[in-house]
């Protein structure tokens, strides 16, 4: 097992190198940061001077080499717009995104998996029929439209929740600013978390349900039932365990999607997280921020995927790793 884990970590490093390289190449085609930095009236020569001062005149390979050697020492470059260390800027925004993603993921897992299990167990209940149809609505409208409609109904027509922003925050001892601990912060969290979590909720619900249906038909559950085991242990202990593999795969994979869709949710709700930062960085040619973000996300994905694979091994001992 440990050999497997260390192998995966090595592979993860390779992935990060590949990601960082392609992330770097992309910028050649995305725009020229020097244009915006030089100002409206700069001459071509002045723009060139800025390019030189940023090192953008050098070949892409040398630029990449410099970037990666600095990055290995924790220096991801300076934002072209704010002249602040890119890593610091991204990390500063990370708590907002992580709290939003956690809230969304929790909503999705709790409601998605729970409903999935219940619907599979009691297919004829009214709740089941509602959930099936309801889950489809969750994945039938684009995230941005869901967000805008939620704001329209729950912030303007019926002003229950605030339309945007993160609300009042409390700074935790280690510098993390949280919105989880204030009433205002939680209120601000509801609409965006729902928007972001809806798609995942529907997906998890359907996956759990179909997996559970399959498991409940299988022989060992029938045997368990025949032996007189009561319903809920069968459902949650035996059947669910079998369903967890695809569900965990999806939860692990979903994080990438959560982040991808969080860009849109953050834009709609003016959520001060990394998604909003990335979006403005992409559209402002602030490449150090973009590459830092990409590498950070890649790291997270690599870690999550490794964890998913390792969890497989525990859940399904039949899979061998050599």
């Amino acid at each position, binding site marked *: 097992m440990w050999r497997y884990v260390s192998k995966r970590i090595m592979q993860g490093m390779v992935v990060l190198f590949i990601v960082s390289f392609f992330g770097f190449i992309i910028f050649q085609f*995305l*725009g*020229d940061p020097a*244009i*915006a*930095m*030089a*100002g*409206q*009236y*700069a*001459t*071509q*020569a*002045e*723009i060139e*001077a*800025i390019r030189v*001062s940023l090192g953008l005149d050098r070949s892409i390979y040398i630029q990449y080499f410099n970037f990666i050697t600095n990055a290995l020492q924790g220096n991801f470059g*300076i934002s072209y*717009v*704010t*002249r*602040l*260390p890119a890593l610091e*800027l991204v990390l500063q*925004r990370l708590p*907002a995104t992580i709290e939003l993603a956690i809230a969304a993921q929790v909503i999705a897992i709790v409601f998605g998996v729970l409903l999935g299990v219940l619907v599979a167990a009691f297919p004829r209940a009214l709740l089941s029929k509602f959930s099936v149809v309801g889950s489809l609505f969750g994945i039938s409208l684009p995230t941005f439209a869901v967000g*805008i409609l939620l*704001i*329209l109904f729950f*912030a*303007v*027509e*019926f*002003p*229950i*929740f*605030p*339309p*945007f*922003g*993160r609300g009042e*925050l409390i700074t935790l001892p280690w510098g993390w600013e949280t919105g989880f601990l204030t009433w*205002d912060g939680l*209120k601000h969290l509801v609409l965006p978390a729902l928007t972001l979590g809806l798609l995942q909720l529907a997906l998890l619900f359907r996956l759990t349900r179909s997996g559970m249906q399959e498991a409940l038909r299988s022989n060992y559950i029938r045997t368990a039932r025949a032996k007189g085991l009561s319903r809920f242990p069968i459902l949650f202990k035996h059947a669910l365990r079998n369903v967890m593999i695809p569900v965990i795969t999806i939860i692990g994979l979903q994080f990438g999607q959560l982040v991808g869709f969080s860009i849109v949710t953050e*834009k*709609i*709700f*003016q*959520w*001060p*997280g990394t998604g*909003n*930062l990335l979006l*403005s960085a*992409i*559209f*402002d*040619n602030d490449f150090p921020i973009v590459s830092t973000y990409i590498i950070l996300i890649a790291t997270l994905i690599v870690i999550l995927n490794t964890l998913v694979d390792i969890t497989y091994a525990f859940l399904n001992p039949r899979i061998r790793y050599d």
Partner: protein
Amino acid sequence: MQKLTLLKGAVTAMFAFTACASTAIASDITVGVSSDVATMEPNGSGSDSNLSVMANIFDGLLQRNSDGKLIPSLATDWERIDALTWRFTLRQGVKFHNGNDFTVDDVLFTFNRLTNPEISNFVNFGAQIASIEPLAGNPWVIDIKTHQPVAFFSQNLPQIFMMDKESTQDRSPGDVGQNPIGTGAYELAEWIKGSHVALAANEDYWGGAPAMDKVTIRPVTEASTALASIMSGSVDILQDVPVSSIKVIERNKKIDVLKTPARRSIFLGLSNAEGQPGSDVRVREAISIAINEEQIIDKVMFGAASLAAQVPDPATIGYNPDIKRPVFNPSKAKALLKEAGYADGFEITLTGPNDRYIQDEQILAAVAADLAKVGIRVNVAAKPKSIVFKELQENKLEFYLLGWFDGSYDYGRSFDKLVTSVDSEKGTGGWNGAAYSNAKLDKMIRDSAKIIDVAKREKALQALNLASQESFALIPLHYQMDVYAITKNAKFDFKPRPDTWLVFKEVTSK
């Protein structure tokens, strides 16, 4: 409908305890703006969304009043003593937020900073300054000499904010942009990135303490959320109201709408390279009269724009009141195209941004539809500005849409960037996206640069502007309007400025 209202009342009442947090105190003001505040490094950003906030924290040597007129700020007096020399008398007794005195050293320090490409967004302006010297025996009067005569020098000063030398020189550019220290009417109280900027009144401001104690600036980049913010009362003022919703906000009993003419014009540029249709001036004329601009203003801009006959706005030196806009006439356009040998029209790609100007993407589509009716098949390439601006600077486009206004109120300077032939050594034609080239206009702009007499120079620029319009160098569409929404029960008086800056010391309480 009544039922719905009842239901609304009930639901809202149920949650009323959650909604009462936002009752504003008399001298509080919250403003929603359409783009995020990126930096507060005064010399590091020329974009109005940043300058707008910084104008509250910093002062320039000069400032503009709410009508756009140049008035004293950190300089009490100024004059141009000869073609190259400008004399400024500095204000005495001004203190920075950290308690330091404002002196001539700070002025020297600031202007020096402008030439540093790693910091400055005004390298071009900084490079024009040859020397700055205090007058012998009087440290409060300085002479600034430029290399070439710069007619608009004073006009550009309101956006050059004075920095405190002592506290700036030892800090990194990043830190300077984070923790601004200026002489302005407000100090930075809190800045949560991506969320809001809070400003607190500077009670010791040299111009007197401002009426509003606390100002919060909240970026709301998504248009529909911005509307929600003003309709739900989360902000008191909303800048850049989406034009499609002006009518509905005007009908809203709780909100006032303010429309003011903006300085920016929107226009089209077209290549005149050999072999391109645009090399024939008849084609250029045909395009300019084939576009039903009045309809675009009415339907696409929802009335929040005015017809433009030329690129500079009336406040700009070089604006020529004699230029008339060619009349919309699609049948004449067809005839012109036929004369030019394009009876069957031609195909062309129109490139423009879709995240920069009001309704930019819709304007592109409308232009394409109008030109289709005279036989020109237009492919619309609407992309984010970061890509379009790069392509513009490469000067390889066929046909493009751009918006412009001159912060220095001088069309000569803009013309050099927009129309003058591309020449990277002379630094001209940087924004001439389709590499338009016209020897006659090039000569006129070169000649105008040598004129020192202000009145004569203005005449020359007006003639240049006319000549450029006659050869359809650029095809002007309209001037934008700025649209603000303000809550009706506001306890303050707010007057929008032509430069779109939000200068809160001008806001008075009711």
